[in-house]
């Protein structure tokens, strides 16, 4: 068994060094889909989460509980929802995005969004209300206050994005259902691994697994660097 793992690693390295075209295509597709999904869900989810976290209103606890539940929404069920909504049976059948990479982005976006919103909202629990007052008294408008809060909670917010990216890139069930695992078109690293496992090609599947780990690792290195960089994160210096 140990020799199988070793030969899988060697196979993975070989595929990378020789720039195997199909593996490259699958890897780039996976990264592109997940990164776009996470970026979009962060752009929408962070402000939404911060706003929810700060606001005080009736039913806030209920809404936050709902979002927390949504964070753990079973991805394969999400895939099923989207599949039905965009299929012949559903209201959006005419849109025709099933079996395309667009629907992959959509489904990963929907899985990432509650994670980002939920974690962003919870960062606000730790933020001093006096900080908001200080920002206001220094002259900040609504948008500037938001940016300052994001700046203060930057580490936690990045952690939310990193968590969401992890969830997105490792997703297999939902992606299989809505994308169809079409070779060269909607096949991601995860569904490719699934295909190789069902064909009994475990060594190759594991090699793909190592490539997936490596790709995710590199993205996380970059995100973690951003998370901790000391720049003011604001215009001009």
């Amino acid at each position, binding site marked *: 068994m140990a020799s199988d793992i070793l030969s899988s690693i060697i196979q993975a390295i070989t595929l990378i060094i020789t720039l195997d075209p199909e593996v490259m295509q699958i890897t780039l597709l996976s990264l592109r889909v997940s990164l776009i999904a996470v970026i979009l869900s962060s752009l929408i989810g962070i402000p939404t989460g911060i706003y929810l976290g700060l606001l005080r209103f009736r039913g806030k606890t209920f809404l936050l509980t709902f979002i927390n539940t949504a964070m753990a929404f079973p991805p394969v069920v999400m895939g099923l929802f989207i599949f039905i909504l965009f299929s012949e049976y559903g209201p959006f059948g005419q849109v025709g995005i099933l079996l395309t990479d667009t629907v992959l982005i959509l489904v990963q976006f929907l899985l990432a969004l509650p994670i980002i919103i939920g974690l962003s909202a919870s960062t606000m629990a730790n933020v*001093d209300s*006096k*900080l908001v*007052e*200080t*920002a*206001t*008294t*220094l*002259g*900040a*408008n609504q948008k*500037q206050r938001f940016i*300052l809060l994001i*700046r*203060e909670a*930057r580490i936690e917010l990045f952690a939310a994005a990193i968590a969401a990216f992890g969830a997105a890139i490792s997703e297999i069930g939902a992606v299989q259902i809505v994308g169809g695992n079409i070779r060269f078109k909607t096949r991601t690293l995860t569904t490719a691994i699934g295909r190789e496992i069902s064909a009994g090609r475990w060594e190759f599947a594991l090699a793909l697994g190592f490539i997936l780990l490596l790709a995710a690792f590199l993205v996380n290195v970059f995100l973690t660097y951003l998370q901790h960089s*000391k720049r*003011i994160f*604001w*215009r*001009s*210096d």
Partner: protein
Amino acid sequence: MVTSIIELKDVNFTPEGSIEPIIKNINLDLYSGEILGVIGPSGSGKTTLLKTLALLLDKNLTKGLYKYNKMQVLPEINGATSKLVDIRKNLIYIHQHPVLFKGSVLQNIKIGLNIRGMDFIKHQIDSLLRDFRLIKLKNRDVKSLSGGELQRVCLVRAMILKPQVLILDEPTQNLDPSNVENIEKNIIQYIKSDSASVVIATHNFFQAQRIAHRTAVLINREIVEVGKTKELFTSPKNVITREFLTGKMVY
């Protein structure tokens, strides 16, 4: 020429969901170029009064008349030439316990300048830092600073923006004498420029007598007396004031 900067007439503030106001029947003027002290027992509403002056509190929960530079700010007038948000830019409130953004001393100062779109003029900032004995700590992360240093950073951050009114909530509470001396010196210096004003809440009667031109006494949610500091402390007009000043008040 001395002008009235802020006028409060019959002002109340009642927090959300409460029947009792925290401060009531407040009649108070603030003039240009003066340091106004605010003294009173803990829980009497000093912070609320200061935040009301700073226009930081919910305007819908604030009753009464607020004028800035003779213009009515509260209650809000539809179509007023200057909106509350703009007036508020002239007032900066500093919390009792220093509130800082993540980063260095310099980054905190820059945040204020960036918010207001003001230029970052190095020698001005350095000069102010020197006044507050912070020049050596310019690039230090605020996490590593002491309470006194943090409070001084907050003051620099506010003063560099040159607000017309600086509103300080017990700024030297818990600080050692050298910090106190440095801060008081800089406050006095501040009002000399452009006839700015300072409101300073304090527990320290000596401090009030040292630096405040006039002093207001806030007891049990109301201002019981306002007057020239020296006269107030030597011969207060109100019996409640006298009891408070001599420590006879039981509260």
